[in-house]
């Protein structure tokens, strides 16, 4: 609160990426958690919500005739270009946002104040929803070869591993501790995934390296080096990709050259290749595999989790995917706090390692549209919350730190909230758990596509104008409702002897997806220099497209918004937002 000096600025313009459209004019509000922009120039009230934690950079640009521009880039690739009338207002919003977007103390993170009015009991049950022990049981562990040990209960072996780890039964405590002295940060080889198809005990393992093993000292071991670049290369690559995505009316060549020069898809392919290699080694060569990079919490996490997805259909379900993220990323100490820049810290520690994993999953969805229980929105939702700090799951850098922060006592887990929304996050084409076993993706370069839905997600104009996903989801739910109501009516049939107008069940229109996503579509600027008579400004259609974007955006951000947390001074907004909340729940 103390960071907000100017909670409300009027006459703020929001520029559109498309130059030929009129800028919106409205009011900008700063609340404890969000920046909210209300467009007053539109006929229908439109709001743009930006979570402070989502803000990656805030820039003041040179003065223009319209005023003082403020450019905001978000970690979920939203970009907002405001123009504020007064320099003083612009500066105050700027300094407030700088502080609000980069808290210094973990206690300032949203998760610690987020209150969805859930009972203490339910909150605790929420944290128990994903239990890694159940997953190990599913793999048949403990067994003759593997055991779950609490050797790390006081974090003596490794302070970035969880208290319970899976190690070979034959390795006693002395062996484990001895090995930990030889591995960077004590990150000894522990089990990631046991592939049950093999007779013996194959394992995809993880460990920290820093250097590599001398082959002479390890019997029966083959080395394979897979060139995934380090976090700094990845950070720069994403930066270049985003510059390409933000180009104003680029030519096809500009775009493709930029895409190539960013190297982004090359890195995505490298991660996928490594995952495919690992899965093949386990499945086809029936080998046990030890995976490591330097510390074993970035590239190792990517590769192990991808291989698990390729091998085991369970991880392709909603619940299984949550288990996978908990197991391979959260429990094993991927440093979300540093990689996502949750707190004011070293910018060189920030890197899109998790984003790359999410993208690899999306690439797999493109090749195997019926094999995942969840849809693209599920991935985007998780990606949003990795940065939103609204839930405790991704705070801190490892299990120990999360214990110290008391996140299990003070915050909520994301997973139950996602499962609640399963209806809209599921894949209507999913053919079930047993339809596909191992996946063997094509990894030729042409199999990788640019993910417009992620990196240009808020440029709705670029997306298909009609949404197949919405349509299929609504078809499915309509069909279900009609079936239910039909059987209800059928049960009454024998007792009735005439038409039943009063019993008619009223249902939303089938195919309402068509009306929900109407053809709100207007021609864009189809030429470099439009002759003035062709650029006829915004039309009703433009406005609707905008409101759709904002509405969706607002839903994404404010879905679990506790309205009582909002700045109380903004009564107007609160009442509006409450309406929004009623609509959403």
């Amino acid at each position, binding site marked *: 609160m103390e960071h907000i000096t100017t909670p409300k600025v009027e006459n703020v313009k929001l520029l559109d990426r498309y130059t030929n459209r009129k800028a919106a004019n409205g009011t900008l509000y700063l609340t404890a958690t969000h920046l909210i922009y209300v467009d007053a120039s539109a006929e229908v009230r439109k709001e743009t919500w930006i979570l402070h934690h989502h803000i990656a950079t805030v820039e003041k640009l040179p003065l223009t005739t319209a005023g003082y521009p403020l450019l905001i880039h978000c970690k979920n690739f939203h970009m907002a270009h405001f123009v504020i009338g007064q320099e003083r207002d612009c500066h105050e919003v700027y300094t407030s946002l700088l502080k609000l977007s980069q808290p210094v103390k973990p206690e300032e993170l949203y998760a610690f104040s987020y209150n969805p009015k859930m009972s203490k009991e339910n909150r605790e049950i929420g944290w128990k929803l994903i239990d890694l022990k159940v997953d190990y049981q599913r793999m048949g562990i403990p067994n003759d070869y593997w055991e779950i040990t609490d050797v790390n209960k006081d974090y003596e072996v490794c302070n970035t591993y969880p208290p319970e780890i899976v190690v070979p039964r034959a390795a006693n405590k002395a062996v484990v501790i001895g090995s930990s002295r030889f591995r960077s940060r004590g990150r000894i080889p522990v089990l990631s995934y046991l592939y049950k198809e093999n007779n013996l005990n194959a394992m995809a393992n993880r460990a920290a390296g820093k250097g590599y093993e001398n082959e002479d000292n390890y019997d029966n071991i083959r080395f394979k080096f897979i060139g995934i670049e380090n976090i700094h290369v990845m950070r720069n690559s994403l930066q270049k990709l985003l510059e390409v995505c933000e180009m104003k*009316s*680029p030519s*096809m*060549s*500009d*775009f*493709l050259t930029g895409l*190539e020069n960013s*190297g982004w*898809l*090359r890195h995505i*392919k490298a991660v996928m290749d490594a995952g495919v290699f690992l899965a093949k080694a386990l499945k086809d060569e029936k080998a046990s595999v030890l995976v490591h990079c330097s510390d074993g919490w970035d590239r190792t996490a990517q590769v192990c989790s991808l291989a698990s997805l390729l091998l085991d259909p369970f991880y392709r379900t909603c619940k299984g995917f949550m288990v996978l993220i908990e197991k391979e990323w959260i429990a094993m100490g991927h440093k979300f706090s540093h990689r996502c820049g949750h707190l004011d810290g070293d910018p060189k520690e920030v890197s899109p390692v998790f984003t790359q994993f999410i993208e690899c999953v999306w690439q797999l969805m493109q*090749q195997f*549209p*019926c094999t995942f229980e969840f849809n693209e929105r599920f991935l985007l939702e998780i990606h949003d919350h990795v940065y939103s700090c609204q839930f405790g799951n991704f705070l801190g850098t490892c299990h120990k730190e999360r214990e110290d922060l008391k996140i299990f006592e003070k915050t909520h887990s994301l997973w139950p909230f996602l499962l609640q929304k399963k209806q809209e996050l599921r894949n209507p*084409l999913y053919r079930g758990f047993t339809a596909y076993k191992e996946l063997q993706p*094509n990894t*030729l*370069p*042409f*199999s*990788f596509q640019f993910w417009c839905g992620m990196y240009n997600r808020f*440029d709705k104009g*670029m*997306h*298909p*104008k*009609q949404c*197949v996903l919405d*349509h*299929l989801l609504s*078809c*499915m739910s309509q*069909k279900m409702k*009609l079936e239910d109501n*039909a059987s209800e*009516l*059928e049960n009454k*049939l024998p007792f009735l*002897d005439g*038409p*039943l*107008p009063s*019993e*008619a*069940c*009223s*249902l*939303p229109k*089938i195919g309402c997806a*068509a009306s929900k996503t109407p*053809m709100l*579509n*207007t*021609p*864009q600027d*189809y*030429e470099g220099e439009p002759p003035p*008579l*062709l650029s006829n400004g915004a039309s009703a259609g433009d406005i609707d497209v905008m409101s759709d974007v904002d509405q969706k955006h607002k839903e994404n951000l404010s879905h679990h918004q506790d309205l009582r947390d909002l700045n109380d001074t903004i009564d107007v907004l609160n009442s509006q937002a409450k309406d929004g909340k009623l609509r959403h729940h």
Partner: protein
Amino acid sequence: MEFSELIKTATVENVLLSCAGLPAVKGTLCITSHHLLLSSCPGGDGQAGTVELWLLIRNVDAVEKRLANSSGTITLRCKDLKVLQLEIPGMEECLNIASSIEVRFWVGSEPGPSHARVQRLAGESGRLQWLEAPPILWGSPSSGCPPSLAPQAMLRSSQPLTGPNRKRCREDETLLGTVLDEGERGFIIDTRSAQAAKQARMTGGGTEPKSSYPQWRRLHRPLERGRPLQESFIKLVDACNDTAINMDRWLNRLESCRWLSHVKAALSTACLAAQCMDREEANVLVHGAEGTDTTLLVTALAQVILDPSCRTLVGFQGLLEREWIEAGHPFHLRCARSAYSHARLKQEAPLFLLFLDCVWQLSRQFPFSLEFSECLLLTLFDNAYASAYGTFLCNNEKERCLCKVKENTHSLWAWLNQPGERKKYLNPLYLPNALVIWPSVEPQSIQLWQGLFFRWIRSSQYLDEAWAEIQRKVGSGLVQQINKKHQNWVCVCHLENNDWLLRFQPVQGQT
């Protein structure tokens, strides 16, 4: 000379056929006047006597042979972009087969209906007739037009013969003048750059000078055609077939072949034409040089964008018949060779493919708005380059008339519109949409058409399964299912106040 006389070896046994992504099959190879057949050996991999390959020889774009010891391998690169390998025991047989295909394929490149004789029409041939182009009166504001359709006219032509002396033609000026009312403005979209249009004057062509056509405003939107377009196609297919390519090289070649740039340019220009009509409510004249290539690309695409009746299965066929075939796109010259041919390029250019690609882009951006599916676009591509039907034969109506194409061949449309066939080409997600469909032409919105360029390179199993799943999900039939269970009651579903109402009423005669 009849082709059969040129066949030196008509059948060879134990030929191994392989094609990327499919298991190899061994069988008997047989050459007929028009086809290459391979039926698998009894007791072999396939079922006894199963026909594994039925390839129109006209579909062959390039033949390569490699001899080793006592056998040889023939690689057939087809116009539909598939690549087949035949391992033939016996050197002589191999050479004979190869030369028969080569001869056939040269003879076959002469125009004329005798080479397009229909081989098998499943006994339905009697019912097949040439489709009359559906009566779509483009540009005339009849009562049947949907409300969104502007009563503006789109015209197409070739370039005016202005020449170096800046000739004028009163009649031409009058003709264009009659299209516009007093004070009304029209747009001329020239598919060449301003400079190219000016240069055309040196060879007798040119463009409409402002002074002579004062009511018309000229816009230049250069679109590639001819050799550069064919080379773009060849380079793209080359890159797609390179399986040893790395990511950077792939993106580099995708960019430098410029195919997607051509797609973007074609869509943008068509949108501009549509915008002039729909937004500016102006009449539009489109032309390039001859008015048979990029002109048709623009006018046909603009109609798909503007007019919902062109987005139905029948309407789209009508559009092709009217805007491509009757409008005189020289299919015979443009589609003589596809991307694999090493022959010296003459008049080949994949303008029709570019059009199909643009329609595919529309279908991706508006998945509910086209009644037909990708399958139709692929079939059209295949038939434009090699067909058992007469529809795409010759270069214009006059040639088709001289060759008696309609008398001697069958129509592709008649084949496609048979009830059993038709189903294959329908889009299960289709919901008629009366509005204009404005696509995004941002590079992020334009994708490489994988279904065409990778059709024979990657497995489509998982994508086909997804398609089948979509068909299952949108298929209704709920009411029918319910009604099967009841004898005295009938369940009806009807729309009231935008809600579907389900109710049971007694079977007629009961009340």
